[in-house]
């Protein structure tokens, strides 16, 4: 009789542990997905802003056609990227071209006088920051989730129900610095 009670209690607690672990795995996977969709929102914001900026500065910067074309090209490439890894690479390339555009813009004082350009530049700076913060948040969520999956005993349940390791949104060391625009 006692043995039966112990066995039943044991099964009960194991089931309880199984359910709670499974649920927390699902919760964390959803955190990661949500964080990823946040990046998407910010990337879309950037795609929408770039043509505006290029259109506005084009007339002032006729000598910098190459820089502007590089930005447009990088934008179109990034829009069609597939998967976390390719997306990360394309976005990093786009950030790089934008950085050089901002650097070149420093040479055109009349741009700083244009209120429209200033507004667009603030929006784009903010968007760059948002992208890096949202991927920082995504990476933190991925790290938590991956740690859960890889540590014992959660890894048993993760293996049973096919929870997979997620990719980090990798940033090369050189790109870690945000695009800094200081027009003060």
């Amino acid at each position, binding site marked *: 009789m006692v043995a039966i009670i112990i066995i039943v209690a044991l099964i009960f607690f194991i089931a309880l542990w199984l359910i709670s672990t499974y649920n927390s795995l699902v919760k964390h996977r959803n955190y990661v997905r949500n964080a990823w969709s*946040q990046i998407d929102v*910010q990337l879309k914001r950037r795609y929408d802003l770039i043509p505006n900026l290029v259109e506005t500065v084009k007339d002032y910067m006729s000598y910098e056609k190459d820089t502007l074309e590089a930005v447009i090209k990088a934008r179109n490439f990034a829009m069609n990227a597939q998967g976390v890894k390719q997306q990360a690479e394309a976005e990093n390339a786009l950030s790089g071209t934008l950085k050089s555009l901002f650097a070149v813009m420093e040479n055109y004082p009349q741009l700083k006088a244009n209120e429209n350009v200033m*507004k667009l530049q*603030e*929006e784009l*700076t*903010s968007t760059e*920051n*948002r992208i890096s*913060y*949202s991927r*920082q*948040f995504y990476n933190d969520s991925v790290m938590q989730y991956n740690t859960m999956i890889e540590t014992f005993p959660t890894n048993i349940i993760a293996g049973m129900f096919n929870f997979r390791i997620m990719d980090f949104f990798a940033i090369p060391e050189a790109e870690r610095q945000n695009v*800094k625009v*200081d027009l*003060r």
Partner: protein
Amino acid sequence: MAAKICPRCGFYNSPLRKDCSLCSTPLDGEAGSGVPFKMSFYDVRSSNNRSSVILVFFLLIVLGVLGYFAGEYFGVGYFGVGLALLFAVISSLGAYYGGKQIVLSISGARRVTAENEPQLVNIVEEMCIASGNPVPEIYVIETDALNAFATGRDPKHAAVAVTRGLMTNLNREELTGVVAHEMSHVSHLDIKFAMLVGVLVGTIVMISDIVTRWMFFSRRRDKQKGGGGIIILALVLILAIIAPILAKLIQMAVSRKRELMADARAAEYTRNPEALASALEKIGASSVKLQTATRATQHMYINNPFKDFSKKSSSLFSTHPPIEARIKILRSM
């Protein structure tokens, strides 16, 4: 024995301490090692929730006692206790749901939108992404003083306010650091406890004020009433004891450690501790006083708005850690 100076933040500690009372760095042996902040994110939140409940109970007890004596004095018995408790419940609910508006209107903050302050709104939204919080209401205080605060009962009903002086004197990165510090107070739920303290303590002080004055005048009018003298004495004594306790409570409300934890979290959000450090440098160097800060709201600001007070009195009784120590800790990250 000489005081031990913390190798990390330069804070003067009692010679008996083994670790710095400000930043928890071990004082003996090698410097800079060890985890500076022991509390995790969830510990901070639950500690704030606990403190808020204790505070409301404290208010119930204080007002209950006050009500009892007032009831005895006016000869209405336990009616006084009932009335006081009813008032306590109403003012607690009022502080919880309306505290944000009270604090904001006391400080003279004006709400802004993306149309009139695009950069500030952008910065706050960036920090919301970094901290995973919903976007709070954003306010500006029109003054040249350099300060900022956050308030509200939870992250969904939060407000962040910065002064105009802060926006004109800091660059974008520094302003981001300050906003990150405020968003840390939002995620840590420091805002809830700080708001309850400010509003409830303000209420108690106001009531004791009214009661003591009333007693003073009514005693003059009906001197013939016998037996009331001892009760009045007791009441005055209680009020005299409560007042400094309340003052201390405000100061402990957002303890110095919580400010440091918010600084550390801000550095984690922005990955840029230097920006907040240089912002604090500018804030500390400014001599413009924030006129709209009061004793009941002083603990909510990023830097103590009553600078002369904190410099003269010992750092033990200050609501904020010395700004130099905060800068040093941020630079050592």
